[in-house]
């Protein structure tokens, strides 16, 4: 289902075609063959291509990410270039000034890298392990839920709600993440549940 075949065929075709069309049109017929053979293979040809969608607005432009290393083969993959997907019906290969900077946000200096905790009253974060962070979160949730869960309202009606903890979900995550999040959050009885749709 992936796009690799059609794109690769397109690229092969293009490398032959460039000399024949662009240069030919400019009237450099005689030198085109010599020039074409002097062109170094495109730098991106040895990279892994992956189809993705721009993370910003809801136009949802198709993008192609180029990485050193192939994630699907279990290799470490470092994304070195991102460009618009020329096959995408909406953006036809183009990107806007926001999307043109995608590579810089993937590699932003201010990416979060490790779980951290800021203790009450402190002026700094301290690095902790995932286990420490997750165990602590589960404990905080359970203690608050057990203390404040409302099984029945004043009229004795079963309401099974938990109002003292809330969850703000993210509208740049996938539908699949959203569904997993929905299941977990609703199973606890939380009602303070929202996402960017309202703002």
């Amino acid at each position: 289902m992936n796009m690799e075949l059609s794109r690769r065929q397109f690229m092969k075709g293009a490398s032959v075609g460039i000399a024949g069309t662009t240069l030919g049109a400019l009237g450099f017929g005689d030198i085109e063959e010599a020039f074409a053979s002097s062109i170094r293979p495109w730098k991106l040809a040895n990279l892994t291509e992956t189809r993705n969608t721009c993370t910003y607005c809801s136009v949802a432009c198709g993008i192609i990410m180029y990485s050193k290393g192939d994630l699907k083969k279990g290799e470490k993959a470092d994304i070195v270039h991102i460009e618009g997907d020329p096959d995408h019906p909406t953006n036809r290969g183009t990107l806007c000034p926001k999307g043109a900077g995608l590579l810089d946000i993937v590699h932003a200096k201010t990416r979060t890298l490790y779980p951290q905790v800021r203790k009450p009253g402190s002026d700094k974060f301290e690095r902790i392990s995932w286990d420490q962070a997750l165990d602590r979160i589960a404990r905080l949730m359970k203690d608050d839920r057990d203390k404040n869960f409302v099984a029945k309202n004043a009229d004795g009606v079963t309401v099974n709600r938990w109002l003292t903890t809330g969850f703000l979900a993210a509208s740049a995550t996938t539908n699949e993440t959203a569904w997993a999040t929905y299941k977990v959050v609703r199973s606890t009885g939380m009602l303070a549940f929202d996402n960017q749709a309202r703002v």
Partner: protein
Amino acid sequence: MTNSWTDIKNTDLVVIMGGNAAEAHPCGFKWVTEAKANRGAKLIVVDPRFTRSAAVADYYAPIRQGTDIAFLLGVINYCIQNDKVQWEYNRNFTNATYVVKEGFGYQDGLFTGYDETRRDYNRATWDYELGEDGYVKSDIDHPRSVWNLLKQHVSVYTPEMVERICGTPKDKFLKVAQMISECSTPTKTMTSMYALGWTQHSKGSQNIRAMAMLQLILGNIGVRGGGMNALRGHSNIQGLTDLGLMSNLIPGYLTIPTEKEPTFDIYMSTRGFKPLRPNQMSYWQNYKKFMVSFLKSMWGDAATADNSFAYDYLPKLDVPSYDVLRIFELMHEGKVNGYFCQGFNPLLSFPNRKKLTAALSKLKFLVVMDPLQTETARFWQNHGEYNDVNSASIQTEVIELPTTCFAEDEGSLTNSGRWLQWHWAGGTPPGEAKHDTWIMAQIFLRLKALYEKEGGAFADPILKLDWRYKDPGEPSPEELAKEINGSAVADVPDPNDPTKLVLQKGKQLVSFAALRDDGTTACGCWIYSGCFTEAGNQMARRSTTDPDGTGAYLNWSWSWPVNRRILYNRASADLNGKPWDDSRKLLWWDGAKWTGYDVPDIGPTMKPTEVGPFIMNPEGSARLFTRGMMRDGPFPAHYEPFEAPIANVLAPKVRGNPAARVFKGDMEQFGDAKEFPYAATSYRLTEHFHFWTKHSQLNASMQPEFFVEISEQLAKEKNIKGGGWVRVWSKRGSVKAKAVVTKRIQPLICDGKTVHVVGIPLHWGFMGETKKGFGPNSLTPYVGDANIETPEYKAFLVDIEPITGPVA
């Protein structure tokens, strides 16, 4: 969007109002350019600022922010007065002919039934009159027909009144109205492109309704190149809404029960959706199938007919919703202990930052899951004047968890055109960053283990949550997508032939048509059913074929519902099923069935003269009058923003939207025009996306520094120089910025008074690669739309003065 980005090429007239597609959605805006270049389409932009969309428009008209309803009802009035109405469409496909109950009225800015103390209406009279047969009475000549009531309701919005309220010069308004009205012929189509410029008002929902009504009057819904096109914000804002990650929602626009609905039977009793006109599909009649299948996907074997499919496991609401404004209000009151932010930066996103900081400081714990270091996760950290807090006095425990970004994650996103596009992961996550699915699963499994070990408050919904994934520690995107699509829980034999099965246990469902209300099907989100069938992942399809170049691209990804690309597409043909416009056919009746370029939005063999095109409505028709379905009126009406430079000229005693919720203390924090004379609005820049791109070197280089934008006239009046420093303040806060003095903003004359507009872009904070800066939300008011509580970011009052800037 009712239509799609690629469909915009089919239009004759684009109206951008309440949005700025050229800057906020540049690659989608290309389709406007296509329509202009290839069809000779025209572009109208109506905006307080001369935006880059306006710069390429055929006609631009200025408008004061927060007065769109007056403008749009003015256009409707113009169409009615000049008989620019697609009559056949309106008589057959809208509720124009229906008779409204006696007693309904509108006076002095209020509809019947207003209760000032509750800021709410008794909506009993906002409904149709039913005949003895139980169906709505239909008679367009009746004095209380929807059409006659509408005609009367909009009559006050004359071109002169529009100019007085909106500040749009009469000749400019008339030019726009005339251009729009030409699209009332069946062969001319207009598209509406809008975004946050309409939603972020205390009457945002009614802004959109006003345009939807105009589009119906022109016959532009359901046709190629037409529609109501919400451009929307984030890449998956549509998906998160569809999946119901909101206080009062269940996936697929089902609703969380209230405490007045203690049993499933009572809950279902108001969701029968009996047709209001003969023969209508009234598709919500299938509600129970969607709901039971959802409950089965949540609680699997624990959801049985005997326990009403675990209906008790769902929390019950005591208020309409615990939306973000309400929860931060409760936090501010000290009534909330814990809060999670997953890829969301509320400290910068929500209004009245001072209140937000005070609220977050009262939490016991805050968990932030994000690929970027957000300001919210650092609300306790002192960043000088940009975040002037005393860390030692803040007792909140904050845990920050690193997540993957789009490039390292696999799954589907739903764009504004409702296309679910699958994408693949291409990069290794940095550091110890993890997928959100892993984090949610790990939190869930640990919480579940604690309940298993210790017991505690009503643990059943947690212990019995269906979590049968191959690796419970990290459900795969494919497993989750299949669950959203739905599958058969049991074999279902064919009632006509017991040797055959209607459904085979474990098989993926073909679409929501297969859903059942007896617990034999499970489906996470009914409107997404069909996205991942036995034929595979439909969202991963990437065929660029587009027969006859209609722009539908039926085999590129998958669109909800059932891969339909234009909603209400049956309305693209007349009562007999013949396309309104032969050059722009979409769907037609071939004598036996519906056929065409799109998946029919109607039963494929339902006769055109019998079944109406708006199949979700019990009427089968679209609503010019919304009955009691919106809190603030069955028709839109002009209300000023809560902070407005002039009083409501139609109803001077009414402040803001009379049905909008205002918390105690917030009303006192609204400023008035005497103290704060300038009309401010927030906006976005081409080079930035919310608070993310300030972390990207490229974007930070392009727009490095916070500024505010004012007119040359205001600059002169206040002695402000371009590039000089200013202080801008509202009743809630103060910011410092460089002034950009432009011709893009011009003063308006409203009700005889000069109104200066101050533009405040959104994108700055104290983290990332840009210079530190403020944003509009240090200033914005804490009040939301009456129906869905979207804050009023787009219209508020400020004052401005020149100051001496910091030493460089």
